């Protein structure tokens, strides 16, 4: 199981998923309407490291963070 958390304005409870890679996470999140609408503009961190690798292999207990558009300052 990996844990997926949704940051900032997404206001979505964390969920747990079975996933071997980030691609598996993508497939499952795309099926949840309230989340799917955000995905094209969200970045992703695994265990707090930003990543651009959809093939990234996940292990038990990994934390995946979904980061919607930002505006600091």
């Amino acid at each position, binding site marked *: 199981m990996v844990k997926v958390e949704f940051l900032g*304005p997404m206001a979505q409870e964390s969920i747990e998923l079975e996933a071997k890679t980030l691609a598996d*996470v993508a497939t499952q999140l795309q099926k949840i309407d309230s989340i799917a609408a955000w995905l094209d503009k969200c*970045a*992703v961190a695994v265990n707090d490291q930003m*990543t651009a690798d959809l093939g990234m292999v996940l292990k038990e207990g990994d934390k995946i963070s979904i980061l919607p558009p930002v505006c600091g300052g």
Partner: protein
Amino acid sequence: MELHQGSLDVEAIFSKWLHEEEASNYGAYIPFVGTIRAEDGIEALSFDIYEPVLQQWFDNWVKKAEELGAKVKMAHAIGDVPVHTSSYISAVFSPKRRVALELIDEFVEDFKANAPIWKYDVKEGKRIYAADRSTPMNGSGLLSK
């Protein structure tokens, strides 16, 4: 890097950073002080921050600045920040002015684009995500593929 609940104490932070580097022999110190403007009837802006990723973003800038012989610092507010008070201060120290002037520009612009901070307008006590002023971070859209 420092995060504070509510508005930043601009003078205290400016002075603290000045004194931290007063023996470092830097020739240029350029702070950028961001203040909440009164506009669109807002009472305040409010901020969420994801600190673990912000810390890494900042640590990368510390390394990048070191390679140029320079130093960066930053402070940001968490939660509500009333109009006419400060939410954000960043700064560059460098031996030479050209490096400092170029670095403060790049540092502030990358901050706006890639620091994991979410902004909300506060109107009549309600928090409204500033969607139209927000920017997808580098690498966004990965999970929509």
